[in-house]
């Protein structure tokens, strides 16, 4: 078992509290993603696992062993940085072989190991060339090979795709996932890109200002966000959010956002007992907003098309309803015009409800 456990980690840098009582449990052979905006504490967390930063408080376990006192070189953890340090005067082979050289491995085994890793990463053609001739993606893979060649038990990747072109990012992320499977390695991967996070991660921890907001499988984070932050962070286009109050209208209960409302009669009691307030936030994913050309009897609201974004296979249409702009995801076959009048209908059963003050999900 080479899972990882961080227990109650806190770290300050100057006056800034970077991590606050952060606990994470990463399973053996898992591809675990730490996702959050810049400055959330992702890199600090990785460096604490690697032993490059000493936490002010808390414990780090690799497998069953507490490693707080173990120096980085003895932790058997490999880390690939955002900007990998590669020696420009050495060939690809020499760069990748470097860690083995330090370990004084003999030439035959070194050659075998380097070629094996290069084959898996599909960079055999780079072994004789020097880094100045590499593309960004190739450089990243050589850096990765240099870490993998040591066969570390745990591999940490700090925003490994950040500096790559959008197209290369897409293929490299698949390669990384494939590699993690083939090597059977525990991999921890940080990113600010939620799409990358859900695409590669077995599980994801969404981190914000040093606090882990939610940990779970991609589908779990997408379908059942536990906080407003997680709800906003995961998913693109972002979940629509509007302030609302829970109130009774005749024999129905609605979440009233003044410019529109949705029926939650079935869930009203649960919401009320959990929130203990009527001051709430309503969240609706763009695919759960339906656009109609003519009004239905009830539960739909007039708005105007404010923006149309072409996503290729889909369209994101922004509708202005009163003071609120709502994004709706629609099929490309539907044609909309700027300023056009449309009617918005919500998939009520898919609505998320959050406590307005605490940001915690109540339904």
């Amino acid at each position: 078992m080479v899972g990882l456990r961080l227990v109650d980690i806190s770290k300050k840098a100057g006056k800034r509290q970077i991590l606050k009582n952060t606990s994470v449990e990463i399973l053996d052979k898992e591809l675990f993603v730490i996702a959050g905006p810049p400055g959330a504490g992702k890199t600090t967390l990785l460096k604490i696992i690697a032993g490059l930063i000493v936490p002010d408080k808390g414990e780090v376990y690799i497998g069953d062993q507490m490693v707080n006192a173990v120096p980085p070189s003895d932790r058997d953890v490999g880390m690939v940085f955002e900007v990998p340090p590669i020696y420009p005067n050495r060939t690809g082979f020499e760069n990748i072989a470097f860690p083995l050289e330090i370990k004084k491995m003999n030439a035959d085994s070194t050659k075998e190991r380097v070629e094996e890793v290069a084959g898996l990463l599909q960079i055999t053609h780079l072994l004789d060339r020097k880094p100045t001739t590499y593309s960004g993606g190739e450089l990243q893979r050589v850096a990765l090979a240099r870490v993998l060649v040591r066969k570390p038990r745990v591999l940490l990747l700090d925003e490994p795709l950040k500096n790559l072109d959008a197209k290369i990012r897409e293929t490299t992320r698949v390669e990384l996932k494939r590699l993690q499977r083939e090597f059977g390695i525990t991999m921890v991967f940080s990113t600010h890109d939620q799409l990358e996070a859900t695409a590669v991660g077995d599980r994801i921890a969404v981190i914000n200002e040093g606090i882990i907001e939610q940990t779970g499988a991609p589908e779990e984070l997408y379908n059942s966000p536990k906080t407003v932050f997680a709800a906003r962070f995961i998913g693109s286009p972002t979940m629509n959010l509007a302030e609302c109050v829970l109130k009774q209208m005749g024999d129905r209960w609605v979440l009233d956002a003044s410019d529109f409302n949705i029926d939650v009669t079935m869930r009203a009691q649960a919401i009320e007992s959990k929130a203990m307030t009527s001051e709430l936030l309503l969240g609706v994913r763009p695919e759960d907003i339906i656009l109609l050309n003519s009004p239905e009897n009830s539960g739909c609201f007039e708005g105007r098309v404010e923006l149309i974004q072409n996503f290729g296979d889909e369209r994101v249409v922004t509708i202005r309803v009163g003071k609120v702009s709502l994004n709706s995801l629609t099929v490309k076959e539907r044609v909309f015009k700027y300023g056009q009048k449309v009617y918005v209908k919500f998939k009520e059963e898919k609505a998320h409800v959050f406590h307005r003050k605490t940001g915690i999900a109540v339904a």
Partner: protein
Amino acid sequence: MPKLVVKNLRKVFGTFEAVKDVSFQVEEKETLCLLGPSGCGKTTALRIIAGLEVPTSGEVFVDGVLVNDLPPQKRQIGLVFQDYAIFPHLSVFENIAYGLRVRKMPEAQIETKVHETAALVDVKSILDVPGKKLGLSEMQRVAIGRSIVLDPKLLLLDEPLSNIDAKARERMRAELGKLQKEIGIATVYVTHDQLEAMTLADRIAVMRNGLIEQIGTTSEIYDRARTLFVANFIGSPSMNLIDCEPVYDEERAILKSGGFSLDITEFAERIRDKTKGKELVLGIRPENVSLDIKKTDPRAIEAEVQLVEPVGAKSIYHLKISGLTVLAKGYPMPEVNVGVKVWATFNKDKLHLFDKKSEETIV
């Protein structure tokens, strides 16, 4: 009259031909996007239009006037840089007023102009705030305000969203889209991000190796790629591209690639003469490959799921079909996991066919 006409632009740096022969025009109120990977010549083309680079040959007309011999500040072009270049110690008002002061406009007129512009780019409430205290989207609006206050005939934007984290980029992309509609100035926008191009542009010019491969509306570029390069570059995940050869007999037409075959008898007449004896590349976008657990469509092809990437409302399925990797994109199917056998159906109306040698489309 078009706001910008670029004719046979060419630029050579030493022995490197950065821009080979580029011509296009931008109409009033239109946003044209120059899109391509690093090194395709898009930024050089933009810099030539702005007057920051002298072309080796070719002509640039702004609003009907040949500007080749005019310095940047006389071209009536507003330029917004990647980092926005806001003066940190000047207030928003002074940042916007800067160009007017350089032009020695009377104070009263400056006052009016800045307020008008501030209303347009929605920074009226922060006119006194110093540049260094601005958030990202405020900086974007101030940078655009500072350009448009000079009443340019044309606006140039150089990768304005490229150094911003994914979540903020999504928000600012939508804001930029709304702003463009409001200010209505002809715009040239440079990016390597195909999604940014699709969502913001009216038309896209896809560039490669110093040439425009295809220019057209966003839908044209997405639905009717003229070359293999464009097909591969536009859309995320990329279009599936499968090397194959046509096999015709009296009754049927089949595209074959190793063990993979696709019946295209319905198109045989249209393509027989154009494809006979040629090596072809079959293209199909992931959203046009649909999956089923059972074989309900008699022409469905057996596939094994190799990887699932949950990306929000949809999931990307990496399939193995007769030794080929094919991607499918659709609503998540909880029962479809790695290793599961599924049946894939290609939407025949959405097939692309390219000549492998010329890399150009056949149908």
